[in-house]
């Protein structure tokens, strides 16, 4: 063992086992029931106060001319001392012989529920403080309910200020019964109910001799009795993606494993996208590269395939997928001043994913006193309710009952956290795997990567009756069935809207082509395989369209001789043109300039439609195939 290793070993020994386990717990309860005092007393009795702190606070309290309050210790902010209530959550550290504790002090005042939640959510257990003289109050119940919603299962009750009830067992027993009954309805059962006096130190760190009728543990012993939450390694893998890094030659997909494990070589699916790739490596800096990683670890992985992956996707094993759906029932706690109503739109954020949701239904608001569901048309601040939401995007959800960390989330309104949500149930949608598109602003490359093909414009030119529209519609259906994004821009339909102000003069035809080309380009940018069906008789106009659209323009000459076209005459236009009822009709009294170098010629004269369609499809597939997947990562 060299010098450094020896020093490290010594350092580990010096810190001893007592320091390696850290246990965060919350102290909750009704305002003024003595939470802060309990903490002050705990710190004092465990000899955890910084030197001089007690004297400093005593002096501050003497200066104010009041009795010493243990709560001054925590309420260190000037503003708080003036108001006499804990505004925000505070964290304080101390240790017993067993382990280190992080005390989370949550304010009991109703106004500050959001702060209480911010604190308590970090705890693994809680002590619920009840004033012996006042008994169970509204915030006592509300906090118990919050503990349950936040997923805390380990709770001890401290009945404080027993000195004020003369250490009376009967009155203590009555409070103990009341709180036990309430907790039972929440499926919670307290580990201990302890009569204490924080002010005088009874049953805090050492047993009190004033209550011979109480044989249970002190608060400190009850704390040491709580157990640490097991890491969820045996649950299905959930690794919500935080980001994709490209700082060097590696493309790193990063996130924290919320549950389960992963291993190099595993095939991952990135829900809700159905895209799959294998883990090529788990990367690390200043440490050996591991072969496996487990719940709780923030990891960076590389994949064997450059899929389109973004923040919000969840890496899972495809045999243990989350529920993929658009609708869910949530139990929520609402923190915003503006009430929540049916029809409102919010974001549901689960891990790193944000889903745009609409409130479909408010099923019930929970009455905190009686724990009964009641009907309501809106959800006010600090209320707890059950709602049904619908998302416009496909969601990947777990149920809170099964998967604590990914079965819950927050509600966002204009970027602000306005509530918390537990997923009670979710409805799986019947999803066509191939048609899932992105719903974010992304580059063309990213969009193409998720579509699995490039956007393109197939410009079908030819005489009226050559078969352009029939082929266009046939190709659109075929591509759609294959999971491609395809859309037909038909000249006749365009003339009903975008170009309805134009006639058939050469100048108007040129403008008709220009507008059609611009629309086609936009759709191609949007990822579509755009099939333009337009006579477009002039070479000059088609060349301009090629210029507008660029390299994604494919000129396809749908060829048929005039006699064939005229014999088909699906719309009776040739007949009308011959009779002079319509003027400037291509092929009759207006010219058609056949393409000189089209990308493809399809001669429909005497060829069955199916064969023409097959030829067109055979050309299209390679033309829209992804050429350089790498470009997609320049987001």
């Amino acid at each position, binding site marked *: 063992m060299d010098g*450094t290793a020896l*020093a*490290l070993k*010594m*350092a*580990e020994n*010096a810190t*001893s086992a007592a*320091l390696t*386990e*850290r246990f965060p717990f919350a102290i909750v309860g009704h305002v003024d029931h003595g939470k802060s005092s309990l903490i002050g007393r705990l710190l004092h009795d465990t*000899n*955890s*106060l*910084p*030197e*001089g702190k007690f004297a400093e606070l005593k002096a501050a309290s003497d200066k104010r001319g009041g009795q010493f309050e243990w709560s001054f210790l*925590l309420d*260190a*902010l*000037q503003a708080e001392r003036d108001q006499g209530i804990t*505004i*925000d*959550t*505070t*964290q*304080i*550290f101390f240790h017993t012989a067993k382990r*280190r504790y*992080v005390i989370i002090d949550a304010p009991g005042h109703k106004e500050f529920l*959001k*702060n209480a*939640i*911010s604190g*308590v*959510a*970090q705890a693994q257990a809680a002590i619920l403080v009840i004033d012996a003289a006042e008994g169970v109050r509204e915030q006592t119940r509300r906090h118990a309910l919050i503990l349950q919603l*936040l997923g805390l299962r380990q709770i001890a009750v401290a009945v404080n200020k027993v000195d004020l009830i003369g250490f009376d067992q009967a009155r203590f027993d009555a409070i103990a019964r009341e709180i036990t009954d309430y907790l039972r309805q929440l499926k919670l059962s307290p580990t201990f109910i302890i009569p204490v006096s924080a002010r005088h130190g009874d049953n805090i760190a050492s047993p009190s001799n004033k209550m011979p009728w109480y044989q249970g543990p002190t608060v400190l012993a009850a704390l040491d009795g709580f157990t640490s939450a097991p*890491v969820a390694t045996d649950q299905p893998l959930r690794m919500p993606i*935080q*980001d994709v*890094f490209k*700082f*060097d030659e590696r493309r790193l997909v990063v996130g*924290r494993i919320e549950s389960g494990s992963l291993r190099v070589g595993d095939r991952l699916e990135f829900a809700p996208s159905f895209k799959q790739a294998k883990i090529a490596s788990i*990367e*690390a*800096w*200043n440490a050996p590269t591991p072969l496996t990683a*487990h719940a*709780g*670890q*923030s990891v*960076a992985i590389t994949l064997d395939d450059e899929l389109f992956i973004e*923040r919000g996707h969840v890496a899972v094993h495809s045999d243990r997928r989350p529920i993929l759906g658009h609708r869910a029932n949530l139990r929520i706690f609402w923190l915003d001043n503006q009430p929540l109503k049916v029809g409102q739109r919010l974001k549901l954020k689960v891990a790193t994913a944000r889903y745009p949701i609409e409130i479909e239904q408010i099923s019930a608001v929970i009455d905190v006193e009686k724990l009964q569901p009641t009907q309501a048309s809106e959800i006010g601040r600090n209320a707890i309710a059950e709602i049904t939401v619908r998302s416009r995007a496909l969601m990947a959800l777990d149920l809170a009952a099964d998967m604590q960390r990914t079965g819950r*989330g*927050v509600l966002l309104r204009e*970027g*602000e*956290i306005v509530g918390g949500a537990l997923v009670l149930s979710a409805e799986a949608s019947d999803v066509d795997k191939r048609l899932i598109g992105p719903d974010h602003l992304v580059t063309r490359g990213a969009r193409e990567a998720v579509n699995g093909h490039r956007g393109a414009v197939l410009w079908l030119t030819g005489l009226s009756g050559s078969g352009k529209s029939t082929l266009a519609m046939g190709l659109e259906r075929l591509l759609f069935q294959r999971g491609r994004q395809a859309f037909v821009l038909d000249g006749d339909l365009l003339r009903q809207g975008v170009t309805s102000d134009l006639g058939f003069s050469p100048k108007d035809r040129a403008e008709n082509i220009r507008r059609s080309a611009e629309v086609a380009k936009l759709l191609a940018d949007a990822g579509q395989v755009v099939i333009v069906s337009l006579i477009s008789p002039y070479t000059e106009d088609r060349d301009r369209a090629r210029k507008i659209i660029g390299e994604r323009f494919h000129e396809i000459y749908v060829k048929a001789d005039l006699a064939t076209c005229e014999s088909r005459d699906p719309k009776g236009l040739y007949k009308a043109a011959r009779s002079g009822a319509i003027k400037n009709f291509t092929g009759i009294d207006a010219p058609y300039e056949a393409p000189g170098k089209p990308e493809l010629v399809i001669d429909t004269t005497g060829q069955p439609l199916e064969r023409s369609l097959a030829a067109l499809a055979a050309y299209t597939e390679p033309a829209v195939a992804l050429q350089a997947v790498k470009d997609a990562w320049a987001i």
Partner: protein
Amino acid sequence: MSDLDALENQSIYILREAYSRLKPIAMLWSLGKDSNVMLWLARKAFLGHVPFPVVHVDTGKKFPEMYEFRDRFSKTWNLNLIVRDCPPVEEIDPSLPPAARSAARKTIGLKNVLDEFKFKGIIAGIRRDEQATRAKERVFSPRAESGAWNFRDQPPEFWDHFKSELPEGAHMRIHPLLSWTELDIWRYIAREQIPIVDLYYSRNGKRYRSLGDQDITAPIESGASSITEIIVELSQTRTSERAGRAMDHEREDAFERLRAQGYM
């Protein structure tokens, strides 16, 4: 998973959230032990890279050893270092007690940096166990355009969902070390062998436990001349870390006022 591993993984998660959500972003580097740990964690989070500028808001009154350290490791660690001077003390609110007034130079210096670079995120290495007002902090803590911290009305923060959207002109302070204790920092420095300024080690029976400006930071009596000895010392001490920081103790609310105005 050991407690240090849990802290490390949580901090990496926070750093990645910050980098993903807030751009442009920068990290404050005070050259002290905590910000060195924070830089180290950033290199872990970003696999050897520090993909944002590292800002030293220079009071001009740091110890020479700290400037040497800065110049050496900004090169070794390939940092995009931004150094900006603080305004002279004459420009600072004269109603503050002397040491707090001196410390407030950093607040203004930081404001100037924000004005110049328009950072939406500032990563700072404060910890909850340092000081009671810091104990109330959020991991993602919004600051108004003035830089002020509204501790009376902080956003809810739970289940690792952090507020990341800001009004124009405002910025976010991100605190990846909030849950660490002083002892955690030292144990991690020992485990990872992170370089630190020598001033933390005992010389002639004294060492610095916390490093600020020369004129408002006092060393403590200590014979601890190695990381191991420092860890042993801290395991036994009941004196607070910032006892040597004059500005915390001038008046009951001096530090709170500093922080409300935008101090780290």
